[in-house]
């Protein structure tokens, strides 16, 4: 975090290369977040870039009330939420097929059976996450993949901690329903291994 603040300070003093350093540091995280929010690599690419362009424009006025990455995530989440809202309104959702989504994820070097099973699970997970309402999905992704704490997520989402907890809990409940066969399978495996 100190490293980010140092880069921002130098950027404010006219060293533009510091912005590149910040992009390099966070581009994977921001791209992944956008990708998981919109389920389309091209849109995620654009949204991640727009996030950094907006950050570039606002960086000179960045007050350090929150950490840089919280601020950056906030920009990205808001852009993705707006994007999804526009898409829903225009009813031209053109998500990548699930097989493309799987292709984007690094393939694990396993046996064919394990690969097949992993593939099926990824399809189920992608499909289930897609079905979550936008805000629940954002909260869930920020917690599950970014490992952020409730307070940080609340800052990013611009809402209270209570709202974040409610979104998270509803998201997990809904995912449990959507992934029921997988959950039951895992539970029975666990029982067998104990037995």
């Amino acid at each position, binding site marked *: 975090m100190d490293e980010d603040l140092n880069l921002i300070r130098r950027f404010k003093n006219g060293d533009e290369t510091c912005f590149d350093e910040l992009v*390099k540091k966070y581009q994977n995280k921001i791209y992944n977040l956008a990708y998981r929010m919109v389920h389309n690599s091209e849109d995620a690419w654009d949204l991640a870039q727009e996030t950094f362009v907006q950050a570039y424009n606002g960086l000179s006025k960045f007050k350090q009330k929150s950490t840089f990455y919280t601020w950056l995530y906030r920009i990205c989440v808001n852009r993705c939420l707006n994007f999804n809202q526009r898409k829903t309104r225009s009813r031209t959702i053109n998500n990548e097929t699930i097989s493309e989504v799987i292709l984007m994820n*690094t393939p694990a070097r396993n046996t064919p059976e394990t690969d097949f099973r992993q593939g099926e699970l990824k399809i189920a997970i992608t499909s289930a996450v897609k079905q979550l309402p936008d805000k629940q999905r954002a909260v869930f992704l920020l917690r599950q993949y970014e490992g952020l704490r409730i307070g940080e997520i609340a800052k990013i989402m611009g809402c209270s901690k209570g709202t974040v907890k409610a979104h998270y809990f509803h998201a997990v409940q809904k995912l449990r329903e959507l992934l029921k066969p997988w*959950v039951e399978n895992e*539970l029975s495996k666990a029982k067998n291994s104990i037995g």
Partner: protein
Amino acid sequence: MNCQKLKTVLAEYLLDELSDKLKRSVENHLLTCSACQKELAELKKTLALFEPLPENKLTPEQQTRFLTEIHQKIRRQVQLRPKRYPARWLLPRLVPTLAIATILIWLVTLRIRSKEDNYTKIATEIFAMPTLSLSGEFVVDYLKANSTMDKGDFSQISSVLTKEIEDYLDSRLELPDLVEGLTQEEKAELVRVINTML
């Protein structure tokens, strides 16, 4: 702690954001309640399904392209940004105001001038057309018959003449299209112009 209370703190328990005291309380309840154990186990397993998913990492080439494109977007944005002048709040307001004022003045002048020109044209046309020369003939005949009249009688001629032209305009039978649609006020103006010409 009972089942109802546990449900209200389950999210925090899953998020590992409960105080130690509450956490112990939840765990004590779980030891004795199989329904809550099942509920929690299912939720934990659901979350466990997500753990193996790897992050999509951009390749080094993609990372370079990503940054280059951001630079391009920032440059494009700077180029598109309008130049700022010292009196930047005044100019954007002053220019359209002046333009609108000029157009309004021009339109008003044009309307006044075109109205006058129009009346003159109509009057000229009326007296130029043989079928419409009744007024002219009338005036000539009248003047011939009253050649001895003095200045005081001129107003009488004018009023007779005015009435004759008004009747003529009202009949509209042989008037050109351009007279049609004139209001009473405009007709009166036309009559005034014709009188001037006579």
